């Protein structure tokens, strides 16, 4: 299931991480060679857990930069094209990154009071990879959106 991807030239690096307080901390980061990346199989396993049937393609719009220069903080916004009423609403949206050591990014829980099933956050991306968002309605039906992001400098492996 795991692809032992060759991390080669980027397996060792030192990144400067600056925290909000202004303090700058130098952290030496080492990704062990042969570190297994999550891959699409793990993403598929999470989708299978959410839904019995394969999610319908489309209906979930992902707003992402085409090229992210810094993998440490990549903005992501999703919008699900679905009504938000007491009878029919988007219950959960799972955002995943198929090339990260752990594919899960965040799971959003909505209610009819959300008004619209849309949210934004910022994520770490280990490298160029696909971002997948799976939305589940209150009746259990699912739909998904997918988009590729090119990452110039990978985030802290997770």
């Amino acid at each position, binding site marked *: 299931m795991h692809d032992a991807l060759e991390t080669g030239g980027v397996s060792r690096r030192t990144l400067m991480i600056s925290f*909000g307080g202004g303090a700058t901390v130098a952290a030496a980061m*080492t990704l062990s060679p042969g570190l297994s990346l999550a891959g699409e199989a793990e993403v598929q396993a999470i989708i299978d857990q959410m839904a019995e049937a394969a999610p319908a393609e489309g209906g979930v719009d992902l707003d992402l930069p085409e090229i992210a220069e810094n993998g*440490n*903080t990549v903005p992501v916004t999703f919008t699900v094209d679905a009504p938000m009423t007491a009878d029919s609403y988007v219950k959960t949206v799972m955002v995943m990154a198929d090339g*990260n050591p752990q594919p899960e990014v965040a799971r959003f829980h909505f209610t009819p009071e*959300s*008004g619209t099933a849309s949210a934004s*956050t910022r994520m*770490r991306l280990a490298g160029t990879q696909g971002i997948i968002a799976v939305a589940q309605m209150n009746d259990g039906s699912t739909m998904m959106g997918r988009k590729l992001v090119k990452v110039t400098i990978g985030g802290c492996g997770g």
Partner: protein
Amino acid sequence: MAKIRPRVKAPKKAAMGEIIEIKTLINHAMESGQRKDSSGNPIPRRIINRFDVALNGRQVFSVDLFPSISANPYVAFFLKAEESGDLTFTWHDDDGSVYEETKSIEVA
């Protein structure tokens, strides 16, 4: 780590039925558990793993966060303004700490 201070930007007033955007940020290293220190020892994971939003005590939105979320997690989302009251924002840390912020909103 610097003192953890949550920040929330939400409108103070909204029209009935209006869909409002709420932006939140909390300073936190979101240590992923994947990194190693300079001597090669793994740095233990410590992240904000859950973010809850309640209106007058009733949960209206929440997020489960994973290590792939960037440091200083930012979450922006929407709410349909249907009642005035207190919005309570709660962040749950892996170490058991809970950080809270409250904003009141007036719906006319």
